[in-house]
C-alpha cells in the first residue's frame, strides 16, 4: 500500500471513528481531494466535517484550535508546509501556549499536517523542511510521517498527547510503499521506534543513523552502497515523534558512532537537538561527536540539477558515514 493511501485511510478512519473529528484545509474537497490527493473521498463521506477553506493558513489553523478548544478533534492541512510560516503565531502563541498558560492543563486534540521537503522542483518557497523552526515550543509536539509507522496509529498517538501537533509529511514518501524494505534489510519495531538492520549482518552495526521518516529511502540506499562498496554495516533508527524526542528508546540501539540525517538545510537543525540529548547520555561511549547530515545552507533551487546539489541525499549520507568511520 502506498504511503499516501495509508494516510488517506487514516483520515477516513479518524473521521469514521471519532464523530467530533474535523478535517479542514485548502482545496481538500472532492473531486479535487487536495493538492496531493491525501484527502480524497473524505468530503464525499463526511460532508459536514470536512471543510474547504479560503487561502488563509493563519485563520484555518486558528479555526482548528477553536474546534479543539470546544472539545473536537481537528486536523488541518497546510497545502505546502512552507506556508505554515503564516500560522506560526497561531501555533506558537495560541495553540501551544493554551495547553498550559492558563494554569491548568487544557488538552487540545489538534494536528496540523505539513507536506514537506524538496526533490520535486517546486522551488524555494514550496520545498522546505521547517521542522527545526518548531522545535522547543512548550505545548507543541512534532511528528514525521514514515513508511514504517502506520498513519492511523500515529494520529492516535498525536491526539492522545492532548496537545497540538505538527505532522511533517515528506512529499516524496506519498508514492512509496508502506513497510516494504528490500531483502537486504530487516525492519523491526521497538515501540515508537523503527529499527532497520542489514539482514544477518551477524555482528553489531559499525554505525547508527537516526533519521525521520522522510529520509528513510535515502538512508537505506546509503546503507546498501556502504555495505556493497565499503563493507560498512549501518543501522537505521526512525522515530515517529521528533519532539519531544524519547531518547531512552534510542539508547539500547546505539553504538559508538552515531549520525543524524535530515533534509533540513544547515543550521539549528533537529539533529543538533538530538546530538545534544545523546552527548549528555553517551559522551564516554562515543568515538566522536554525533555527526549531522543535512542539506546545504541554501535556499532550495527549482532546477533539478541545482536542487540535487543542495539537498541531502543518498551519497551525502554515504560519505558522512564513511568519514565518520574512516576519518
Amino acid at each position, binding site marked *: 500500500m502506498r504511503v499516501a493511501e495509508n494516510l488517506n485511510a487514516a483520515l477516513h478512519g479518524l473521521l469514521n471513528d471519532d464523530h467530533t473529528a474535523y478535517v479542514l484545509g485548502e482545496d481538500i474537497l472532492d473531486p479535487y481531494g487536495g493538492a496531493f490527493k491525501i484527502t480524497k473521498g473524505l468530503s464525499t463521506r463526511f460532508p459536514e466535517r470536512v471543510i474547504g477553506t479560503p487561502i*488563509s493558513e*493563519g485563520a484555518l489553523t486558528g479555526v482548528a484550535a477553536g474546534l479543539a478548544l*470546544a472539545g473536537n478533534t481537528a486536523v488541518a492541512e497546510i497545502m505546502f508546509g512552507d506556508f505554515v510560516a503564516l500560522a506560526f503565531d497561531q501555533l506558537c*502563541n495560541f495553540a501551544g501556549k493554551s495547553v498550559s498558560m*492558563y494554569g491548568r492543563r487544557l488538552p487540545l486534540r489538534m494536528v496540523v499536517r505539513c507536506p514537506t521537503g524538496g526533490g520535486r522542483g517546486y522551488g524555494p518557497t514550496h520545498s522546505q523542511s521547517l521542522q527545526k523552526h518548531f522545535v522547543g515550543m512548550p505545548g507543541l509536539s512534532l511528528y514525521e510521517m514514515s513508511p514504517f509507522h502506520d498513519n492511523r496509529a500515529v494520529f492516535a498517538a498525536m491526539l492522545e498527547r492532548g496537545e497540538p501537533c505538527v505532522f511533517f509529511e515528506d512529499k516524496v514518501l506519498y508514492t512509496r510503499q508502506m513497510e516494504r524494505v528490500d531483502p537486504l534489510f530487516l525492519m523491526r519495531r521497538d515501540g515508537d521506534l523503527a529499527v532497520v538492520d542489514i539482514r544477518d549482518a551477524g555482528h553489531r552495526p559499525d554505525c547508527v543513523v537516526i533519521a525521520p521518516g522522510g529520509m528513510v529511502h535515502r538512508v537505506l540506499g546509503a546503507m546498501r552502497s556502504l555495505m556493497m562498496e565499503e563493507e560498512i554495516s549501518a543501522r537505521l533508527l526512525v522515530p515517529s515523534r521528533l519532539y519531544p524526542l524519547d531518547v531512552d528508546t534510542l539508547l539500547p540501539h546505539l553504538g559508538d558512532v552515531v549520525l543524524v540525517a535530515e533534509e533540513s538545510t544547515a543550521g539549528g537543525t533537529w539533529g543538533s537537538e538530538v546530538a545534544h540529548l545523546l552527548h549528555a547520555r553517551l559522551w564516554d561511549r562515543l568515538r566522536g561527536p554525533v555527526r549531522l547530515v543535512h542539506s546545504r545552507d541554501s535556499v532550495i533551487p527549482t532546477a533539478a540539477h541545482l536542487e540535487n546539489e543542495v539537498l541531502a541525499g543518498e551519497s551525502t549520507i554515504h560519505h558522512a558515514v564513511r568519514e565518520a568511520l574512516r576519518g
Partner: protein
Amino acid sequence: MTEILDGLRLSRLADDDLELLLLVRHFELKLLELYGRGDLNGTTHTCLGQEYVPVALRSLLGPADHVFSNHRGHGHYLSRFRDPHGLLAEIMGREGAVCGGVGGSQHIHRDRYMSTGVQGESMPVAAGVALHLKRSEPGTLACVHIGDGTWGEGAVYEALNLAALWRLPLLVVVENNGIAQSTPTASQMAGTVAGRAAAFGIAHRLVVSTDVNEIRLSLEREIARVREGQPLVVEFVTHRLGPHSKGDDIRPADVVQAARENDWYARYAHDHPEHFHRLDGVVKAEVEAVADEVAARPLSRWEGSCV
C-alpha cells in the same frame, strides 16, 4: 445597516447592573493605585470608561455562549463571573487566582471565557468555536471583544471572511475608544469599522449610547439573529478614561476632557444621585476589602506545572 443611538439622560439602572458597573470601576481604580504603590509587577490595561460595554452585553449573553476577551478584559471577566477575588488574585499571583497566576491580567481562561494578549489572534479561534457551536449547540454564539487598533491585524479579516462564508454565530464587539496605545484611530485605520464589516457582507451596528438599558434594547434583535448564523459586528463608540496601561497617557488635554465628559460614572451620579450614592460607597468598600483580603493571601501555586 447602521443606526445611531443617543442618550442625553441615563436611564435608571437595576441595582445589580449599577453594582457591577461600580465594581469594575473601583476594581480598576484600585489596580492603578496598587501599581502606583508598586504593589503589583508586570503591566495591566484598565477598562476605565468602557465598563458599561460588558455590563450591557451581560444580559444578552448566556452561560453557553463563549466570550473571547483581550488585553483590556477585567470588565469582561467581572461582568461574566462577578469574581473580583479570583481576578485580583490572578493579577497579584495569590492563592485563589483564576489561572494560578500563570496567565495574569491578559491571559485568563474559565469555563467558556478566554482572553489572550496577542491582538487579533482570537478572531479565527472564535470562528472555530462558532463553527462548533453552529453544528453542535445551535442557538449559542461566540463573542469576541477587540479594539479599533486590532483592525490592523490580517487575522481579523481572515476570520470575518470565514464567519460570513460559513454563516457562523460570531459576535464581534468592537470597543472603539478612538485610540490604540498612543495611536489615534485615524492614523491607524483607513475607512470605518462599518465599511470593513460591509466588505464581507456582515451586519454592523453602531452604538454611541452609554446607557445600559438602551443598549440592551437596541441590540436584542440583532444578537438573536447572530444565534441563527448571521454574524454581527457591534461597534461601541467609547472612551478610554485612563492610560493605555500605567502612566503612559500622552493624549492632549481636550481628548482626555472629552473622555471625562462622556464618563457614565459622573453622568449617572448626576442623573441619579440618590441611587448612585447609595451604592457607590458600598461597592468601593467591598473592593477595598477584596484588595486587603487578597493581598494577605499566600502566593499562588501552579498545579500541574511542568516546572
